[in-house]
């Protein structure tokens, strides 16, 4: 069963990998992504980052994204953890782990989940910088990263 959590507390990456594996000897490879708070975003020093979300929708959106990944690739197990609240530079924001029989599936499912999460899960970032507070703008590159999976999907079908 996939693990999907939204929390204010930090997470322990090694412990999450151990829990995901749980001694399953069918797992040949695990791909993992962890997103971190950088101190520079568009040139302004970031002192804190505050993450807001839409609680009633977040879990549903993450479950849907993981379900799509499980339908497209050989996924033995997956973990998605996203933090909310106030974070500092170098803090961990998000963790995606995918265990699979084969590495190609693990990599693709992991990258798909983080790409879709970035464009479809209801989280918003507000940066506090030396210049004051500002909401982080959505990036066109994230839309492109997300939509390439759609293009790939179509070409797989043809």
């Amino acid at each position: 069963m996939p693990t999907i959590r939204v929390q204010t507390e930090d997470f322990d990456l090694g412990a999450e990998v151990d829990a995901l594996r749980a001694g399953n000897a069918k797992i040949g490879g695990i791909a993992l992504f962890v997103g971190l708070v950088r101190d520079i975003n568009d040139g302004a020093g970031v002192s804190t980052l505050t993450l807001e979300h839409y609680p009633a929708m977040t879990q549903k959106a993450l479950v849907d994204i993981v379900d799509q990944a499980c339908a497209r690739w050989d996924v033995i197990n997956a973990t998605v953890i996203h933090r909310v609240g106030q974070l500092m530079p170098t803090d961990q924001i998000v963790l995606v782990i995918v265990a699979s029989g084969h590495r190609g599936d693990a990599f693709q499912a992991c990258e798909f989940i983080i790409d879709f999460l970035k464009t479809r899960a209801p989280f918003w970032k507000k940066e506090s910088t030396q210049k004051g507070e500002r909401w982080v703008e959505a990036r066109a590159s994230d839309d492109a990263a997300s939509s390439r999976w759609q293009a790939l999907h179509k070409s797989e079908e043809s």
Partner: protein
Amino acid sequence: MMLNVLYFASLRETFGIASEHIALPAPATVAALIVVLRARGDSWFDALGPDKRWRVAVNEEMAVMDTVLQVGDAVAIFPPVTGG
């Protein structure tokens, strides 16, 4: 019919309100709700203009302007997401 309308992130701050109940004649679409909100003028008219980027979810699922609303629906309006 009564709708539960929610605002998030920069739109919540722009409007100065996190949620409200809005009555709309049925049947209605998301587009009809947006017309009502823009008619309030000022920041409502500007922030929800067709030149601005914002998203709508109905009952916690992404929706479009043509999505039909039912009585009691939760309609969330928010800027493009920036998590991860």
